[in-house]
């Protein structure tokens, strides 16, 4: 077997320490007032509403409505997302659960607002969207009672949401080129007005603009006189998803039913912030206790294990904060932190198994190098098998508690399709931290630990069987 050279230990340990430092503090550059984030640190972690306070609402059709289409539910989702952004709430989570016709929204308490009224916010989000069609796209600016200026379309609407039957995205092939379009179907009530409007605008080379909640969605030029009540909006869409988003939004303004709050939860921020500090403290204490135990009991392998464990925790935090560009950031909840702490405890397993094996080999009279080599190779299958079980469990947790359209939920759909999406959001984060904890445990506990142990055992003053668990000479 190839010998691992002495500096390897320091290289691996330094890499882990660097990872640990940068995950906690991040890497930023300040240019005057501007702050560029190169690596997102722990302060950039998006905290769940159980920590920073916030709102958790499920919207659905009012009463017992049958025949709800997927596009209508997606429309509700899109309009709510648009309203959240309009209210400067950008760190929301929103999921459309099309099997159970509901839309789940979670967003944090606005820290800038002292008197944030969550009920008013929920009310506003769940309003039926105001869909209007205007001749041309002129706007006028008015001032509301609070002194804010509002830009709204000028004139009286020719059609409203009540006159629209549905909108859908589709492909149309013209001259051999296929492009995404939105097809608009009107009800009989809107056909006459639309026919008149298209006639005028066609003759004047004008447009008809479509507005949702006073935001202009589209302003297509009228190329025909349309009297059948079926129109096609074409040309403006870069891809099919853009067309279907517009179709969804139009549908949300033409819902044949009202939107109702199916369930709601509001969490005040005062309760959560303290609990974050307490959990972080618990994590630090747990790490120290486990580290002391490992060093006192396993000596050299224990010391190496502590460095690996640090790497594992740093890796878990990094996988949540969005440190690695290929892993998107993740909302961290209290159970999510508990998951990280739990994996501190479980994470020593790989190191414990290896250290126990090495101890046995030493006591069986093997040399230090051969004991380390055999201890590592003999314990691999047990470590791998043990990790697989926790991964199975973590995947099921993420599938059950995660967003209905998420990867894991989709995998479990054949079994769990009958059931509604999770009524609470905080366990998803636990499944995730457990999952990444195990992955990093494997990477660190197997790869990094072994490299470090083989390398550090080359130092003469550390080449003592006692340090690897043998009897004291």
């Amino acid at each position, binding site marked *: 077997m190839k010998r691992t050279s002495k500096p390897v230990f320091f290289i691996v340990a330094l890499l882990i320490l660097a990872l640990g430092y940068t995950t906690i503090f991040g890497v930023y550059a300040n240019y005057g007032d501007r702050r560029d984030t190169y690596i997102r640190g722990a302060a950039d972690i998006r905290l769940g509403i159980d920590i920073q306070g916030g709102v958790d609402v*499920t919207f659905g059709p009012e009463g017992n409505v049958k025949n709800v289409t997927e596009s209508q539910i997606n429309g509700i989702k899109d309009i709510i997302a648009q309203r959240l952004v309009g209210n400067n709430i950008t760190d929301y989570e929103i999921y459309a659960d099309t099997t159970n016709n509901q839309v789940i929204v979670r967003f944090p308490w606005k820290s800038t607002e002292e008197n944030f009224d969550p*009920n008013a916010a*929920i*009310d506003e989000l769940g309003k039926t969207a105001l869909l209007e069609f205007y001749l041309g796209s002129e706007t006028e600016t008015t001032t509301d009672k609070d002194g804010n200026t509002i830009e709204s379309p000028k004139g009286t609407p020719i059609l409203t949401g009540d006159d629209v039957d549905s909108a859908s995205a589709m492909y149309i092939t013209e001259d051999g080129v296929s492009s995404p379009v939105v097809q608009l179907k009107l009800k009989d009530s809107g056909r006459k007005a639309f026919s008149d409007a298209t006639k005028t605008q066609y003759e004047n080379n004008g447009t008809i603009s479509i507005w949702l909640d006073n935001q202009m969605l589209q302003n297509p030029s009228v190329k025909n006189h349309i009297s059948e009540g079926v129109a096609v909006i074409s040309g403006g869409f870069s891809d099919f998803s853009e067309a279907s988003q517009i179709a969804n939004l139009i549908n949300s303004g033409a819902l044949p039913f009202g939107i109702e*709050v*199916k*369930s*709601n*939860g*509001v*969490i005040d921020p*005062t*309760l959560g912030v*303290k609990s974050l500090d*307490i*959990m972080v*403290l*618990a994590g630090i*204490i*747990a790490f120290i*206790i486990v580290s002391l*135990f490992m060093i006192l*009991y396993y000596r050299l392998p224990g010391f190496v294990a502590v460095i690996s464990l640090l790497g594992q925790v740093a890796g878990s935090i990094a996988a949540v904060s969005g440190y690695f560009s290929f892993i998107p950031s993740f909302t961290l909840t*209290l*159970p999510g932190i*508990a998951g990280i*702490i*739990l994996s*501190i*405890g*479980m994470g*020593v*397993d790989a190191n*414990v*198994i290896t250290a*126990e094996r090495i101890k*046995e080999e030493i*006591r069986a009279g093997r040399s230090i190098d051969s004991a380390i080599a055999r201890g590592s190779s003999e314990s691999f299958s*047990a470590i791998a*098998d*043990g*990790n*697989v*079980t*926790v991964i*199975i*469990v973590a995947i*099921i*947790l993420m*599938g*059950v*508690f995660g967003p209905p359209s998420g990867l894991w939920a989709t995998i479990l759909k054949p*079994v769990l399709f009958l*059931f*509604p999406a999770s*009524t*609470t959001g905080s*366990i998803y984060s636990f*499944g995730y931290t*457990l999952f990444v904890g195990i992955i990093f445990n494997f990477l660190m506990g197997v790869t990094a630990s072994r490299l470090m142990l083989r390398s550090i055992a080359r130092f003469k003053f550390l080449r003592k069987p006692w340090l690897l668990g043998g009897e004291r000479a």
Partner: protein
Amino acid sequence: MKKFNFDFIGKRKTFFAISIGIVFVGLLFNIFFGVRLDISFKGGTLLKYSYQGALDREKVESFIKEKTGMDVSVQLSETTADNQEVLNISMPEAISLDDQKSLDNELNKEYKDFNIERLNVNSLSPTMGRLFFLKCLVAIALAAVFLVIYVAIRFRKIGGISAGAMALVALLHDILVAYFAFVIFRIPLNDNFVAVVLSILGFSLNDTIVIYDRIRENRRKMDKTNSIGEIVNVSINQSFTRSFNTSLCTFLAVSTVALLALIYNLESITSFAVPMMIGVISGCYSSVCICGPLWVMWKEHRQRKDALLKTKSKQKA
């Protein structure tokens, strides 16, 4: 340091008795005290208000009963995190935003000197809660099935079916213990319950697998004259320090969380960490003391059966 040597197989009757005793006590608690479901599973509404001063619980309860016409229950508690007095109101049905608002107003009118302010609301329709509860139960069953199939495939050389079946018994043991932890500590079953049960399943099976792994190895290495019981006992003893130490570290980490959560009265975390502590012990115990010995019993039973068949066929001939 002495080498660990304990006769796990010989003491199996004691272990089985302990487990049956625990299950029996848990069942008694379950029968007498019942089990409560959290809002997320049974639906309903839970409102939390902060207040100052001394509220009369019964008066508040009857006041809200009268205003809402529902069978509400009111509890007063205190969060140690910031020494806040909290009024908890739970209702059997989901209530609309407007009803929440009017309740706020009614409370503030009736108890205007108490500075009542709403902290949390959680409102969910009972049908949705029940369906979600079912989903969680299916998920637990699903996890158990996947895990047992995995064990059966990985250990088919030492009799995958028997290894999987005994692992399943250990898993059921752990599910029951985790469940009883919720019953005995009077914690309503909530999403934490699912998180605890599933983590314990993964954790406990991890232990079981390490022991099976040793059994597989020792069957190769050890003298063929050793009985199954001896092989398993040696295997359990060899991996015992590891099972114990990993469980100890996990237990220490979880109990740190539990302790701090108890001190600061963080309900959502205590209801997670305390059952988890018990589950970690159960997971280690069931792998070491139940699964291995049970597997030996199964194998010995099969051997006796085979031997009996052989002698019978000899007698015939």
